[in-house]
C-alpha cells in the first residue's frame, strides 16, 4: 500500500509542474496587463516602465517561470500585483472556505446519492423507485444557475429563512451556527447535479448486483433482505467510489460559480478577480493550490479503491 501511494505521489509531480507551466504561459499570453489596473489611468508612462522592471515583467517568460517555481518550492508564492499583499495571505483563507463548501456539498452528494440510489435499486418498479428515478433525472438536468437563483429567491428573499450569501451576518453575526446557516444554500446549489449523477450511477450498480448471481446465491442461502442488501452494497461500492471521486473533483472546480452567486469568499472568486486583473502571482498560486487539491483527491480515491479492491493494489 505504501509503495502504491508513493508511486501515485511521484506521478503527480509532473502533472503539477505541467499545470503550473501551462497556466503561467496562458495568462502571460492573454492580452491586458496587471499594471493598468494597479496604476490607474493617470500614471505617467515612466511609472509603468519602472514598475515593470521592478516586478521583472520585462524578463523572458521561461526565466519568470523558473523564478516563480524556485520561490514556490520554498513556499513563497509572491505578492499580489493588484492588491500588494502576500499571495499566501489571500489564498489560505480562500482555500479554507472553498474546502468547507466542497466538503459540505460532498456530504450532501454522498448521503443523498446513496439513499436515493438505494431506494431506486431496492424497489425499481415501486412508487419509491419511480420517484427516485424521477428525482435523479431532475437533479441531473436542473441548470445549476436556475436552481441557485430559485433557492435564493424563495428561501432567502421571499421567506427569509436563510441568508442569501456570504459566510456570516454583517450586522453582528458570527459563530458556528451563523456559518452553518450561511452554508446551507450554496452547499445545496452545488450538490444538486452531482447528487443526481451519483444517485443514478449507484442505483444502476446496486441494481446490477441485486439482479446478479451473487444476490441469488445469498438469497438461496436464506439470508435476510437486509443482509443481502448489505453484501450487495459492498460490491457496488467501487462504482460509488469512482463516481464519488469524480464528483468531488467536479465540485472543487464547480463551486467557483456557486461561490460567485452566493458571495462565498473562496478560491473561485479570488481566481476570477485575479484573472480579470491579470494578477499573475495570485492566479499561479490559486491554480497550484487547486491542482494540488485535485491531485490529492484523486490519490485518496485511488487509495480507497485499493483498500476495497485488492486487485488494484498490484501494478501487474
Amino acid at each position, binding site marked *: 500500500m505504501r509503495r502504491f501511494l508513493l508511486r501515485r505521489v511521484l506521478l503527480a509531480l509532473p502533472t503539477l509542474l505541467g499545470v503550473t507551466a501551462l497556466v503561467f504561459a496562458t495568462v502571460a499570453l*492573454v*492580452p*491586458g*496587463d496587471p*499594471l*493598468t*489596473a*494597479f*496604476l*490607474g*489611468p*493617470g*500614471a*505617467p*508612462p515612466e*511609472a*509603468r516602465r*519602472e*514598475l515593470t522592471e*521592478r516586478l521583472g515583467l520585462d524578463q523572458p517568460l521561461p526565466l519568470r517561470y523558473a523564478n516563480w517555481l524556485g520561490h514556490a518550492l520554498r513556499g513563497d508564492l509572491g505578492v499580489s500585483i*493588484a*492588491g*500588494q*499583499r502576500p499571495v499566501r*495571505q*489571500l489564498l489560505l*483563507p*480562500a482555500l479554507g*472556505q472553498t474546502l468547507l463548501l466542497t466538503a459540505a456539498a460532498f456530504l450532501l452528494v454522498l448521503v443523498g446519492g446513496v439513499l436515493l440510489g438505494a431506494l431506486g435499486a431496492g424497489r425499481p418498479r415501486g412508487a419509491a423507485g419511480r420517484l427516485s428515478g424521477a428525482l435523479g433525472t431532475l437533479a441531473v438536468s436542473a441548470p445549476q444557475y436556475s436552481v441557485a*437563483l430559485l433557492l*435564493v*429567491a424563495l428561501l*432567502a*428573499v421571499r421567506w*427569509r429563512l436563510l*441568508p*442569501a*450569501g*456570504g*459566510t*456570516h*451576518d*454583517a*450586522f*453582528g453575526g458570527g459563530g458556528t451556527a451563523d456559518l452553518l446557516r450561511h452554508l446551507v444554500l450554496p452547499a445545496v446549489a452545488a450538490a444538486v447535479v452531482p447528487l443526481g449523477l451519483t444517485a443514478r450511477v449507484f442505483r444502476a450498480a446496486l441494481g446490477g448486483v441485486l439482479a446478479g448471481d451473487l444476490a441469488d446465491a445469498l438469497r438461496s442461502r436464506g439470508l435476510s433482505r437486509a443482509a443481502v442488501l448489505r453484501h450487495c452494497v459492498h460490491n457496488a461500492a467501487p462504482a460509488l467510489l469512482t463516481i464519488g471521486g469524480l464528483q468531488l473533483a467536479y465540485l472543487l472546480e464547480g463551486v467557483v460559480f456557486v461561490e*460567485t*452567486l*452566493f*458571495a462565498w*469568499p*473562496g478560491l473561485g*472568486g*479570488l481566481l476570477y*478577480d485575479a484573472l*480579470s*486583473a*491579470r494578477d499573475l502571482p495570485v492566479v499561479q498560486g490559486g491554480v497550484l493550490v487547486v491542482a494540488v487539491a485535485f491531485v490529492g483527491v484523486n490519490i485518496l480515491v485511488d487509495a480507497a479503491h485499493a483498500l476495497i479492491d485488492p486487485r488494484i493494489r498490484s501494478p501487474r
Partner: protein
Amino acid sequence: MTHHHPGRTVRPGRTAAGPGRAARPSVGALAAAALLLSTVGCAATGSAAGAGDAASGGRGGTLVIGATGKLPNPDTVIGGAGFEGKRLVSFQIYEGLTRYDLSGTDAPPEITGALAESWTVAADARTWTFALRKGVKFQDGTPFDADAVVFNLDRYLAKGSEFYTDALGAAAKEYAGGIVQYRKTDADHVELVTKDPNGHFPEDLAHVLIASPAAVRATGSAGFARHPVGTGPFAFASQTEGQQIELVANKDYWRGAPRLDKLVIKPLPDVAARTAALRSGGVNWIEYPNPDDIDSLKAEGARIATNSYDHLWYWILDGSKAPWNDPRVRQAANYAVDRKAIAEKLLHGTADPAYQAAPRATFAYDPAGDLYSYDPAKAKQLLAEAGRADGFTTSVTVPTAGSGNLLPVPITEAIQRDLAAVGIKVEIRTTDWSTLIGAEAKGEVALGSDAVAQSTTLFQSEALLPLFIGSKSPFWTGHYSNPKVDQLLGSAAASPDRTARRTDYRSALSQVTQDAPWLFVVNDRNPRALSPKVQGLVQPQSWFLDLTTVWVST
C-alpha cells in the same frame, strides 16, 4: 483666512461650511439644506434619499454596503480596486490636505480644506504653502502636523527612504508625481513645489492621503495594510479576506463624529447576488443595482438614490483612418443615436442623454453646448455630404463589464440598431475590461476595431483630462489631436484661478464636441439602492460620498 504669505490667496470652499469656520455643520445649515433639497433637489437634480431626515438628528446603526468590485488594499493610495475602493474605504479612513466638499447636491463639488485649512500659491503657480489644520489627531491619537505631511510624502516620493515601496511610489505618481520639492516651514506649515505650473494642484492633493506616521512606523509599510490609520471619519476595525472591511466611527473626527456606529463594506460583484443581498436584508445599501430591477426594488420599498456626476459613456472613434477620419461622418453618428431611449428605456432613468463632450455634472458643462440631438435625417445628410450616402460597415470593441460601464453590450446593441437605420453597419466585438484598457494604455485597440466603447469620469480630477483629449496622451484616444484643445488645457492647468480654468475647459470641450472624436452617449446618474431604514444620505454630484450624515434607524 488671513495669512501673511506672499502671493495670491486662494479661498477654498464656497459656502458657510467652508474650512476655518465651525467644523460641524449647524442645525440651521442642515435645515436649509433639507429645504433646498425638498424644493430644488428632488425636482431638478434628482433624489437625495432621506436627506430631509438629516435635520431630525438621528444617529447610530450599522451600514452594510454591497460594493460592485473587490475590496481595496486599505493602505492609503494603493487601493487597487479602482475608484470604488477609494470612495468607500480609502476616503473614509484617510484625508489629504484637501477634500471634495460633498455636502451639496445641486452642483459639482468644489475642493475645500481638509488637513490643510488654507493655502497660498506664488505667482509662478508652482510654489504652494499650506497652513495645516491645528488640533487634528489621527485615529490612533497621534497628533497631525507638518512632520506627518513630510513623512507621508517621503513614503510616496523619496526612493530609498525607510518606508518607501515601489508599489506606493508607483500608485502615488498619478496625483503626486508632479511634486518636486516639499518641506516643513514650521509646525503648522508646509511648502510644496510642483514641476510645472499646476492650477488644480489642491484638487490633486485630495487624492494624496495622509497616514499616521506612528502607525506606519509600528507596522512597517508592508504590514500597514492590516492596521491602517488615518484622520478620516471612519477608523479601520478589521478586514476579513475577500469578505468585508469593517470600519467604526471616528468619534474624535475633526468635523464631528459621523452619525453611524459602524460601516461595513462587502464585495458583491455579481449583480444578482448584490440585489438578493439587499432584498434578503443581508446588506442595507447596494451600489449600482441592475437598471432592470429599479422598478421592482422601488415597489418593495427600497429607496433609489441618484444624482449626476462627471461620467460619460462613449465610443472613441479612430480618427486616423476611414470611415471615422471625416468629421462629418463622426458628427453623423452623433445625430443618429436616440440617447433618450437608451437613458430612459434601457437604463430606466439611471442615466441622462449626453449631447456634448462635457458631462453635465462638471463645472465645464454649459447647457448651451448641447450640440447634438436625435436627428437621423441630419445624420443621413451629413453622410451624403461626406460621400457616404450608401453607408458603410465598421466595428467596435466593447467590454462585457467594468467599473462605470453600465450595461456596455446592451447599450452598444441599441446604438448598433440606430446606426443601422442611417446605413452604418456595426460589427460588435466583445472583450473583457482588463484586455480593453490594457491595450489602450499601450496606445492600441483590443481586437483592432475602428472604435472602442467605454466610460470615464472626466473631471474626477482635472489632472486626468489631458489623458482623454490631449494630443500627447499615452492612452489610445482615437488619435485625436487639436492644437487649440492642447493650448486651452495647458492654460487651464497653469491657472490657480478656478473661473479662468472653467472658461478654458468650456472652450476646450466645446471644441471637442464639434470635432466629435467620440460618439457621446449617456451620463450615468450613479444609482444605488437603500433599505428604507438608511437615513440622511446626501448624494452629491460626484462619484465620491460623504457618509458622515448617514445613519440607520432601528
